[in-house]
């Protein structure tokens, strides 16, 4: 009991420390704490774009909200907890989310996991859309950004212009917007490494989620693997083929795969009415 009390107390203190005065401001402050050039002197405190997200849009896009199916929310909570356990145990900060094939729920899982993580007050979460060929994260929030991660990387655009917050505390999104066909080269550039180091290491309580293209379709995920702490494999029930999963695991054998998520699981009946 004592330990729990201590943990709670610590958590509360940390939260107060990180949040500061207002939720939006704090996040913005943290998010803007680094500049593209990495020069601390040039930090400008600009307001991060805050997006008003229509709950209807979220529901239509299957993004979890307060009114979502309790079973689904519970499932994501389970995922969040287990992911956190893994990350904490290994001191990891970044997590890449991918799957063997396309359309198996990578982006949705990434968004929902991000939201779920953000609901826990101990962390802030940065969700980076690195699926440069088909960036879709922003669409789940019903938002079309003018600029994306590529602009930040290659056009010297300030990060603050690119980031947005979907009216959820402790969550910042770095969207993609244009399609890039030479995405794997871009992902293996030193600039990218710098960016990853910047965004992961600056704030201790920040967790960075990367939404990556399918492992078996393109080599983006493999090229990006050295820059990220761990991988999470998304599997869709009734869709992902067994050989594909085996192959994906084989390709990622040198990376840290913390585990898998089974989407569209039909076993809900077993635990659902708990």
């Amino acid at each position, binding site marked *: 009991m004592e330990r729990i009390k201590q943990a709670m107390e610590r958590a509360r203190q940390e939260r107060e420390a990180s949040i500061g005065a207002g939720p939006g401001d704090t996040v913005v402050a943290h998010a803007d704490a680094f500049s593209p050039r990495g020069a601390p002197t040039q930090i400008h405190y600009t307001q991060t774009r805050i997006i008003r997200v229509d709950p209807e849009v979220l529901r*239509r896009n299957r993004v979890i909200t307060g009114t979502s199916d309790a079973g689904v929310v519970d499932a*994501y909570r389970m995922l969040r907890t287990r992911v956190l356990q893994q990350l904490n145990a290994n001191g990891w900060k970044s997590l890449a989310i991918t799957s063997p094939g396309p359309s198996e729920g990578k982006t949705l899982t990434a968004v929902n996991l991000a939201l779920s993580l953000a609901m826990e007050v101990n962390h802030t979460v940065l969700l980076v859309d690195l699926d440069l060929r088909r960036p879709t994260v922003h669409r789940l929030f019903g938002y079309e950004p003018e600029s994306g991660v590529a602009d930040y990387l290659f056009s010297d655009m300030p990060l603050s212009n690119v980031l947005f917050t979907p009216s959820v505390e402790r969550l910042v999104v770095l969207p993609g917007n244009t399609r890039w066909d030479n995405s794997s080269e871009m992902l293996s550039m030193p600039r990218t490494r710098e960016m990853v180091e910047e965004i992961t290491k600056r704030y201790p309580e920040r967790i960075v989620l990367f939404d990556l293209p399918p492992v078996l379709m393109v080599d983006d995920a493999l090229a990006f693997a050295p820059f990220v702490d761990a991988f999470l494999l998304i599997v*869709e*029930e009734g869709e992902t*083929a*067994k050989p594909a999963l085996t192959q994906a695991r084989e390709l990622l054998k040198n990376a840290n795969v913390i585990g898998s998520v089974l989407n569209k*699981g*039909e076993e809900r009946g077993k635990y659902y009415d708990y």
Partner: protein
Amino acid sequence: MEQESYSLNDMLAIIRRRKSQFWIAFGVLALLSLIITFSWPATYRSTATILITQEEIPSQLVPTTISGYAEQQIRAIEQRVMTSENLLNIIDKVGLYKDKLDRLSRSDLVDLMRDNVTLEMVSADVVDPRNGKPQAATIAFTLSFDDESPHLAQQVTNRLATLFLDENLRQRITSTRDTAEFLGQQADALNKQILDLEDQLSKFKQQNDGALPYEYASTLQLMQRTQADLAETDRTMSSLQDRRVELESELAQASRDAPMKIDGSTVLSPEDQLRSLRSQYASLVALYGPNHPDVVRTKRQIEGLEQSTGNVGSTASDLSAQLESAKSQLAAARQQYTEDHPEVQRLEHTVEGLEAQVASAGKAGGSTTAPTSAQATNPTYVQLKIRLQATVAEMQALQAKQQALGKTLNTYQNAIAKAPEAERVYTALSRQLDDARAQHKDITGKQMEAELARQVEQNKKGERFELAEPPEEPTDPYSPNRLAWLFLGLILAIAGSVGAIAIAESLDEAIRGSESVTALLGAAPLAVIPYILAEGETQGVDKRKIALIWGIIAGVIALVLILVNFLYKPLDVVWYQLMRQLGL
């Protein structure tokens, strides 16, 4: 693919997952079977029952000459009736298979028709009276024909049944007639054989008269009697011989003429005178010349006597004696003289003359003694002569009898010698004849029975086919059994759907359940996220439910319509009835 074993949960999961696939496959297959079942044309069957009636006259009284079991006969008749010719005839006359006439060859049509003819035996369990064993006896058979037209089915069955009845009758009559005819021919042949044998036997008897077995004893007896007769005759003959010798000697002693007594002395008979004169003449000639007066006188005397006695010329013996002496004289003269000596020439002349005389006397020799039988005057001589003549005649008669008896005996002896061979041949011939007669009797008896059987068949009193139930025009189709087809189709649809699912499942490599993830990755998934319903998806579920309800309703209606069509009346009939009731 790795070894997979399905637990009950997996099965349930599969069923839940593949529900829609199942229903689609099932729906398609069921619809297909429905369409086939109800679009298959109905076939009508018309059946004739043909009874095999027992003979009216019990077979104990008149046994039939037709053998074989009823079924065997029916099958034989079937082979005769179901010929291509007969069937094509029916096809033409009834107008069968009009729609197929130009598409199928004649032989195909015949095969098709044969396939549609059904011949079934109707059996009854009976106990065989001979051995008490139960067995099935064919008492009737049914003849059916299937066709899409009930009317044609009935017509064809009718014609086929008629063919069967006719063929049976014809066959029975032919069969019995043939039997009777055959037996008649056999009897005729045997008859001829008997006549032939009888002829042979009678000829043999003729040729071997007395040698035949039954004649042997009598022949032996006859032979013995003949031998006795012959011996008797021989004895009589020898006694007659003795008598003849005796008589001849007596006759020789007796003079032919009684001695003439002139003046108490016996006068020489003319013959004796002639004989003495002749000797005188011969010696005179030798002594004198021929022209000597003594010689001439003697010669004249001789001639006179010769004329009186009829003894012309000198007897042959006299002449030959003269010739001998003349020849000896000639030989002596030749030794003394030459050939030209007159004495030799004279002698030669004499010899020649004598030789001529001898020759002429030899010729007329037979008649020289004939006139001697002229009046014998000695009574004793005449008596002796007569007795001799009688004896000779008797001997001649006996000789003839002897010869006849000898001949007869010879015949009998021959017959006895031939007897063993004759017996053998006779026995053989008799046996053949007996055999032939026995056979003839047998065959004749059978022939009469066969003739009787023929009469029975001709008067239709024998076992025969009777049309117990003429073919009727069927009102209900015989096939297809749509209910059975429907049921079968349903089962096939289910099986097909299950099979389709099984195939789909076995081809499906997708991951199912966290267990398979665990199996592949070595760790359970961190979380299992259920399917997240998007906004508006709840509405979709409702739509599906509504569609399902509509589907059920449509199915029920279809089922009701099918049941009406099948169990009550065809739907088109129902439809027409409805229209009529509505006055349309």
